[in-house]
């Protein structure tokens, strides 16, 4: 059964029909937002049942759209949190990607700006590596980007998408070693992107991110995970009641190969490890439960089939 990430948007009236349907079909709801009279569900649904969901949603005026970024956690790396670099363009993109289902985190190196003086500490590097992909927002000058790229890139193992002022071709030429994706004409600017052209660039970034994510999904599919992250999320919700008291917008953040549990590691890691998934197989059999570098959260890294010889 292949689960496909989709977004359901519809009225609040009778939306429980849809939530029950998703659960009955074996799908998972990753995030649920109720905004005014509207419900937005970011969920995974079996590929064969998407048409069925659409048909049932139609009388409720619900809409099911593909959202390839649902279930991904993206690091948007801004060179600093100063007004020079925020809120545009980093927040523009972070916010735009959130609307289509991604969970984006802004990561900003303490000494990121500048050319020669730009640095990335080990903690910052580890935090970036805990995400599915990183989108690095550079400035406007190609000589600066060319100079600081090797220092910033060192140690980052997740796919990187480079955003910068020069055009895409120039970025491809100056970036060594190569990144996974490039989006040009989006360097430092100090006003809100409102024109069609500016919004179009955000779409370009999303397209590039989607391309890289799809490529990563294909690679994961070659050696599938021992358990689906969305399933693990449901199990943690069921077995660790403390998660319901967490006030964070996403207490359980689903990633492509694991999930982040926003509970203290020392207190709850044991509970998470002991959760039984099926037939005596526990979380610790199929996943590594490690402390996250982000606060004192727990990071669950699901191991592939080739390591565990199990798929549950």
């Amino acid at each position, binding site marked *: 059964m292949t689960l496909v990430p989709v977004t359901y948007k519809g009225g609040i009236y009778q939306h429980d029909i849809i939530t029950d349907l998703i659960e009955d079909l074996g799908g998972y709801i990753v995030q649920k937002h109720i905004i005014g009279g509207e419900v937005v569900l970011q969920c995974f649904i079996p590929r064969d049942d998407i048409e069925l969901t659409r048909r049932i949603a139609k009388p409720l005026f619900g809409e099911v759209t593909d959202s390839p970024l649902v279930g991904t956690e993206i690091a948007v790396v801004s060179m600093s949190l100063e007004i020079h670099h925020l809120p545009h363009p980093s927040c523009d993109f972070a916010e735009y990607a959130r609307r289509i289902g991604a969970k984006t985190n802004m990561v900003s190196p303490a000494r990121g700006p*500048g050319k020669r003086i730009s640095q990335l500490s080990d903690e910052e590097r580890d935090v970036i590596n805990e995400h599915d992909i990183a989108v690095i927002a550079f400035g*406007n000058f190609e000589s600066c980007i060319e100079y600081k790229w090797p220092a910033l890139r060192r140690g980052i193992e997740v796919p990187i998408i480079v955003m910068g002022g020069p055009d895409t071709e120039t970025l491809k030429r100056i970036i060594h070693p190569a990144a996974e994706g490039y989006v040009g004409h989006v360097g430092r600017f*100090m006003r809100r992107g409102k024109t069609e052209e500016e919004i179009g660039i955000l779409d370009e970034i999303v397209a590039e991110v989607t391309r890289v994510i799809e490529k990563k999904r294909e690679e994961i599919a070659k050696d599938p995970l021992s358990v689906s992250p969305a399933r693990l999320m449901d199990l943690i919700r069921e077995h660790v009641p403390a998660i319901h008291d967490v006030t964070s917008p996403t207490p359980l953040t689903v990633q492509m190969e694991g999930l982040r549990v926003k509970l203290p590691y020392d207190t709850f890691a044991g509970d998470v490890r002991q959760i039984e998934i099926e037939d005596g197989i526990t979380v610790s059999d199929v996943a590594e439960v490690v402390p996250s570098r982000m606060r004192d959260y727990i990071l669950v890294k699901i191991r592939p089939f080739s390591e565990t010889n199990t798929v549950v």
Partner: protein
Amino acid sequence: MLSIEYFEVECPEPLGAAYYRQITNDVLLDHNLLRVINKLHIFIDPKVPVFVAVGTLKKISTMIRVRDFANVNPLGDKITLVISDETYLAPMLKIFWQQFGKDKVEQPDRFTVILYNVETEAREIEDLVVADPSASLFKDLIYAFRLIAPEGFRVRSEKFSRERFSFVASEDTLAGDLAPLIRDKFALMGEKP
């Protein structure tokens, strides 16, 4: 940048120059500083790296007086002020309280202030100086250029006077004598430092 007589951004990377032209425009517009700058030349060389901004300022002598934002209407023993712009309302009230005392000043709503039994003529009240916008001008200009310059360029040398200014920034130690560089940039605008 209609109100600026001369505005150029010089940079070995043409696309970078275009972006910085836009950034400069946005920042100066946001901080309402286009009205004070007469000429502006920006030079950026990311290879050195160095950022230079030189320019001349317009003469701003305008003090903000009560008559600039309020109508003063005397009637019997009270004077009614009808406020058209609230920006300077707070400093104006402060001055009134100091001069006349709080019991003689009343503000029934946002746009009306009434003075009771004050011995000052309406004309004198109209001429009262409420604020001097040029007092914070240099502070605002330096802040704006810090925003325009690339963030890593934290080593700065700046010189602001009533008529002209120069702002040099880099991430490395600045060269000992910046005068020739600043002189060259002023010369491009047809000015002397």
